[in-house]
């Protein structure tokens, strides 16, 4: 379904934020969003409906933390299949009732665990953990699996293997939030190299979340330069989270996100959406911007900064490298 749409359209609009939108609907800190698939089906459907009404071609299920490892934090590790099935069913119902084709992407986020040898989780265990979640998403009617916000290659591979095992197509996006790399130190180029060599190959690769929209597009440029033929995904946060008093606000305006969408297109992304802080109002502005935009020249970092703001987590200054220690001799 995704491939069909991509054959006829130059760009597709993915949705906005799930987590921060649910917080705005009353989710409280420490509560698992996935439990709302059961407790508040009306709100989950409204979340999807608002994005579809704003023009989303792809919606992500409310299942980001739906692995047993994440649900374990809420003592819901026994309910993986059920909660993921519900998540996919809600999105499916909204997609099927829409006036335009809408792809249901089953969101799969990180386990939150460190992989061996740094941590305890082995890749084989992780494949089983992801496969359980993906079975639930598949049962609920997801069109494909959307592996997102990843930072470790082992974890991306484990989720991709699990999707393949369940017979599902997948895409994979990483969070480049630390000086232009993922927190595990993976560059966009290295991520693109690694993921495009997974078998079967992903149907799209890219970036989501991270820090600001400028940072994210610098990563997109890295990926599109390394893999010019790949279908590239950009899903940026709506500006940068600011802690003001007791509340957390995102700095992005609809105008900024509209301009981000144009620049994402110019950077070579084919699938463009928003992440944390992106509301349906922002998404509508992005849809309008893309509809009237003609893909332009690839921007450089200076252009991105001039139009979207400074990098929130810039790469280290020129020449900064690991210290030379006596043993490493480096």
């Amino acid at each position, binding site marked *: 379904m995704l491939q069909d749409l991509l054959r006829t359209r130059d760009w597709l609009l993915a949705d906005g934020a799930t*987590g921060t939108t649910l*917080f705005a609907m009353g989710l*409280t*800190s*420490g*509560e*698992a969003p996935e439990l709302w698939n059961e407790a508040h089906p009306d709100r989950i459907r409204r979340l999807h409906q608002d994005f579809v009404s704003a023009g989303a071609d792809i919606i992500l299920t409310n299942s980001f933390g739906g692995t047993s490892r994440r649900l374990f*934090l*809420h003592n819901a590790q026994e309910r993986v299949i059920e909660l993921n099935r519900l998540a996919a069913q809600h999105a499916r119902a909204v997609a099927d009732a829409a006036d335009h084709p809408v792809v249901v992407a089953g969101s799969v986020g990180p386990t*939150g665990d*460190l992989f061996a040898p*740094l941590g305890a989780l082995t890749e084989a265990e992780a494949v089983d953990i992801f496969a359980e979640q993906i079975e639930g998403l598949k049962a609920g009617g997801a069109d494909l699996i959307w592996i997102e916000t990843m*930072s470790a290659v082992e974890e991306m591979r484990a989720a991709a293997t699990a999707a393949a095992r369940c017979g599902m197509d997948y895409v994979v996006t990483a969070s480049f939030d*630390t*000086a*232009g*790399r993922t*927190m*595990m*130190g993976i560059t966009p180029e290295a991520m693109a190299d690694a993921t495009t060599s997974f078998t079967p190959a992903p149907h799209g690769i890219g970036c989501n979340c991270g820090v600001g929209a400028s940072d994210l597009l610098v990563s997109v440029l890295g990926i599109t330069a390394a893999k010019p033929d790949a279908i590239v995904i950009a899903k940026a946060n709506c500006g940068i*989270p600011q*802690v*003001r*008093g*007791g509340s*957390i606000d995102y700095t992005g305006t609809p105008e900024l996100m509209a301009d981000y969408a144009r620049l994402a297109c110019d950077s070579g992304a084919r699938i463009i959406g928003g992440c944390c802080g992106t509301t349906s109002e922002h998404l509508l502005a992005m849809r309008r911007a893309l509809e009237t935009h003609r893909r332009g020249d690839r921007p450089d970092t200076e252009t991105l900064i001039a139009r979207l703001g400074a990098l929130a*987590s*810039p*790469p*280290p*200054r020129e020449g*900064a*490298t*690991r*210290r030379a*220690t*006596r*043993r*490493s*001799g480096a």
Partner: protein
Amino acid sequence: MADDDINLDALPDDELVTQMHDDLYDGLKDEITAGVDILLSRGWTPYRVLTEALVEGMRIVGVDFRDGILFVPEVLLSANAMKAGMAILKPLLAQTGAPKTGKMVIGTVKGDIHDIGKNLVAMMMEGAGFEVVDLGVNTDVDRYLAAIDEHQPDILGMSALLTTTMPYMKVVIEALKTKGIRDRIVVLVGGAPLNEEFSLSVGADAYCRDAAVAVETAKAFMARRSNQMSAG
């Protein structure tokens, strides 16, 4: 040039300490425990080993992490090496007979599993003479309350690294108020996304930017507390 055959025993104190900073940077656990043992055998106090060799070494790691030169895998190796060194020092710090500075219960809040920073704070607090009860990660309000009941600490420390979990601190503080014990305990909070304004808005006593600030702040509150007690 790489030099694999460094004889730690043969190094004078200052060079050994520099070498330990390097070894922490490289995440070399065995070399760190060896270095700790050597310094102790040369008569260094456990506290001096902790601050000059280990904490200073981790500070350097922290700087390069902040500057985007080191990433999580390296920092975790360094933190593990530090932990190994700390395991030797901990019982000694307790024995040196230094009067206990105070008692702290600390944990990362519910929904959050980041613990590198919290562990550093716990280690530094122990180093400074506090008795620390570490509740680990994903701590819900009931576990905080039960631990406070059981251990009667002077200080409650909470850590959060996610913008989605930091508001949980307010849930815990409100529960302390409901139980009528908020005034009996000093609440210190920390974690990268927090700031002073946030800590006040959730009703904490203070925000601690890093582990060193946490120790200083905890000591200041303890001093104020004993003044109040002698005055009252």
